[in-house]
């Protein structure tokens, strides 16, 4: 495993039978596994062993899946390349020498390298779709509220969802079938409209991967093509033509608000992160600073633990988030970002009233070379331009491999209406 895909290799056996019996699943290391350390790619949690399973992990076990390890990731999900991990970077199995994307880089790489049949990641602003695109696999970011977040270590809790990776749309969808559905431990989960009783085998997410796009309307938001790499755009249009050939039609639509999406996303995600990551103080678990009696007061002990336990990118985001929520700046940043979020939602609603699904390149660029983007956080933030609006709007999206540019994988992102997972799975499967 030269790619450094797993932070912890550990086989966790599931039930003897079930829909995923015989399948191996890699789990992102910010999803709690009882008795198996869950580091979030951070020194802070290097030795943290959760006493409980995330809901999705219980569901994997019940479905008969075998968990094969905890995958590498950007520290606390903060990154687009998996290079901010305390445990080192992961190489891209589909494009050696390049990053696998992030933050769920290890999970995408595990499927691409055939280290696991399937994988779980989490997506706060593109963290499933970006590595899926970079590694040439399928990744689904579900509608906010479809999959339980109980046990997912929070980064931006109003934005993120756990979702599946697979080597095909149907494979990824079969994992979504297992993890989706309300959970009494996560108050934000909801029953998809129509209810579970309609959700019979015949209407499973996997069965929606039938490739039938005849009559499908695809909206292409022009704003999401602006500034994208030429080779990526070419590959994208090839994919649209492919869908047209199968009976779909496309039209250009506009999402004027997305020009503010990246700023709004980072303000919201960082603000939430500043609060979500406050609990890491070394008292109950995680990295503790110094020996007993070394620090005069708790304040010093807390800041020392956080200084030693967090990496630079995490510190940067906590500081910026704290600032954005502070008295005097709250209205200027946090509140404005919430307004922008509402605007983005509205734009998506309008666009999705004209089209069944929206399509764009998942990432405006092909995978970076390892080490290339670490120096410049802003470039990295801008690479999220096509993925973050979807999180702001709480919508489902899938990234499907669409070919290559200069030998590097390109993914197409399809966005559907809330709880319209079947729509994007169907359209995505037509690209295979």
């Amino acid at each position: 495993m030269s790619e450094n895909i797993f932070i912890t290799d550990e086989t966790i056996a599931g039930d003897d039978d079930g829909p995923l019996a015989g399948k191996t699943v890699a789990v992102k290391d910010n999803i709690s596994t009882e008795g198996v350390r869950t580091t979030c790619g951070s020194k802070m949690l290097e030795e943290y062993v959760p006493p409980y399973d995330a809901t999705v992990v219980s569901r994997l076990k019940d479905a008969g899946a075998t968990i094969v390890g905890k995958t590498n990731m950007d520290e606390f999900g903060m990154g687009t390349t998996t290079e901010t991990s305390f445990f080192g970077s992961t190489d891209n199995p589909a494009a050696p020498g390049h990053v696998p994307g992030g933050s769920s880089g290890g999970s995408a790489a595990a499927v691409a390298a055939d280290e696991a049949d399937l994988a779980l990641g989490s997506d706060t602003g593109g963290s499933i779709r970006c590595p899926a695109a970079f590694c040439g696999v399928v990744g689904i970011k579900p509608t906010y509220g479809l999959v339980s977040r109980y046990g997912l270590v929070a980064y931006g809790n109003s934005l993120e969802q756990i979702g599946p990776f697979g080597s095909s749309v149907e494979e990824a969808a079969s994992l979504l079938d297992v993890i989706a559905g309300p959970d009494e431990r996560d108050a934000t989960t909801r029953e998809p409209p129509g209810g579970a009783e309609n959700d019979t085998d015949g209407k499973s997410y996997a069965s929606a991967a039938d490739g039938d796009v005849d009559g499908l309307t695809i909206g292409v938001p022009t704003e999401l093509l602006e500034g994208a790499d030429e080779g990526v755009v070419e590959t994208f249009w090839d994919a649209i033509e492919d869908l047209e050939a199968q009976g779909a039609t496309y039209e250009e639509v506009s999402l004027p608000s997305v020009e503010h999406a990246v700023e709004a996303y980072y303000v919201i995600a960082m603000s939430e992160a500043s609060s979500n990551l406050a609990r890491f103080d070394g008292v109950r678990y995680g990295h503790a600073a110094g020996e007993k009696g070394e620090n005069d007061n708790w304040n010093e002990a807390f800041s020392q633990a956080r200084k030693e336990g967090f990496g630079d990118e995490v510190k940067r985001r906590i500081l910026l988030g704290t600032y954005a929520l502070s008295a005097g700046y709250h209205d200027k940043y946090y509140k404005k970002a919430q307004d922008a979020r509402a605007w983005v939602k509205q734009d998506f609603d309008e666009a999705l009233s004209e089209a069944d699904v929206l399509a764009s390149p998942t990432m405006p660029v092909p995978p970076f070379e390892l080490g290339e983007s670490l120096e410049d956080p802003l470039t990295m933030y801008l690479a999220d331009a096509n993925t973050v609006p979807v999180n702001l709007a709480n919508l489902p999206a899938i990234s499907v491999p669409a070919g290559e540019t200069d030998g590097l994988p390109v993914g197409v992102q399809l966005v559907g209406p809330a709880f319209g997972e079947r729509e994007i799975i169907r359209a995505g499967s037509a690209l295979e």
Partner: protein
Amino acid sequence: MCDGGDWQMAVVQIPLRFTPVGSNRHSMTAQTVQQGDLVTVIGLEVHVQLETDTKIFCRCSTEQTDDPNENVCPVCLGLPGALPVLNEGAVEAAVKIGKAIDAEIPEETRFHRKNYYYPDLPKNFQITQYDEPICQEGELEISVEGERRDVRIERAHLEEDPGSLQHVGGSIDTADYTLVDYNRAGTPLMEIVTAPDFRSASEVRAFLAELEEVLEYLGVFDAGRDGSLRIDANLSIIEGEEADENGEIGIDALEAANRTEVKNISSHKGAEKALAYEETRQKNAIKRGRVVEQETRHWDESRGITVSMRSKEEEKDYRYFEEADLPPLRVSHWKDEISIPELPTARRERFRSEYDLNEEAASKLTSTKQVADFYETIADEFDPDLAATWVADNLLGELNYRDMEITDIEDRLEEVTRLVELVAEDEITAKNARETVLRDMLDDEQDPDSIVEEAGLGKTDDDEVQSAVVEAIEENPDAVEDYESGDDGAINFLVGQVMQKTGGSADPGDVNQLLRAELEK
């Protein structure tokens, strides 16, 4: 809404008003505020632990236990990945409080995060409510020295209790180390914020006593629980001339005055002591021409003084923002669906008119819902006066002497009812019932009938008394002679003889009558 603002600031941003109820709405203050007077202004933040079986955001028990960190789980320990789920029982309790204080309950209520670091706070933020509290603008009527008036309640909101700290080897600043116990973390709290409507420490005490009584009536609060009531009080002294003709003190005067926040008060008696101390301390400072520092002070119960917390109070920035893990909860229909019992004040009034009780008895008999319920059972079954004597005087008196509450004998109230029945039906004397049977019942946990039987307290039947009367007359010719020659006191000697023969179970009044009748023959 002010971003990240401190609610303490909101307390003073409301114009002050002293609002006695009734026609003499302003007269009381107008009289009390004179030129040259110093007026005390107090506002309260009362934290009340709500009685629910489980914590507010997880299913851990709220039972108090001596084992530290026993009732904990990933949620209340703030483990990575754990999520809060709202206990609707806590919301129900909050709605009851809202109805009792006649507050506005919004269509929808939601939660915010209050961000600050402290070792007792598992997540280093507290889930609380900010600009959409479950209760706004209520009031509570209190009675101070016979005068009734309303205290305005600006807001009351739900939040989670932090854990508790145990300083080992010293106090907060001298301890060798500090232990954290998360058993308390996540206990539902209601924070009740009053307007600065109090003008004295005794008013504060009256308010808190009334509040406790109401909360207990609602069944949402257990005063006996350690730490179930915690009070922070803001106190400032204003020059009397700042008041307008109605005795009201404007916002400018209040903002200009330095105020201290007194923390660590845990009972209504403690509040009265702490605030009386603080009032005197500030008035003395002003009289001596010194400036009262704006600061936080700690009430030291054992020494009976408030102590400066020393640390210069910086304006805290809690960076409030919405708790996305808890969706807004619609509560508009809860108001109609949740009913609350008759409250103490109303019940007191009704007891006075319906059962013709005096104010003291009515007040005693409505002190807790259980007492009032028990009284009504007895009054309806037997006689209101007899019931009042038995419940207010005898039962509560004996319980109080034993440091017990009516709730301690909850499962024996039927036995007490039986005892009253024995008295009502003239089976035993009131004196024996009170002094022997009731006391034995409480001390030995025996039922009244067996005590009466064992001690032979049953009233003797008439034949037996009659023969004792005859015997006494026959055996004491001297006393009979004295009586017949006009010495009425001789009858008492004869009564004593009869009582002796009947082992004290005859009624002395009856014996007296029987003796006279026999002697007249």
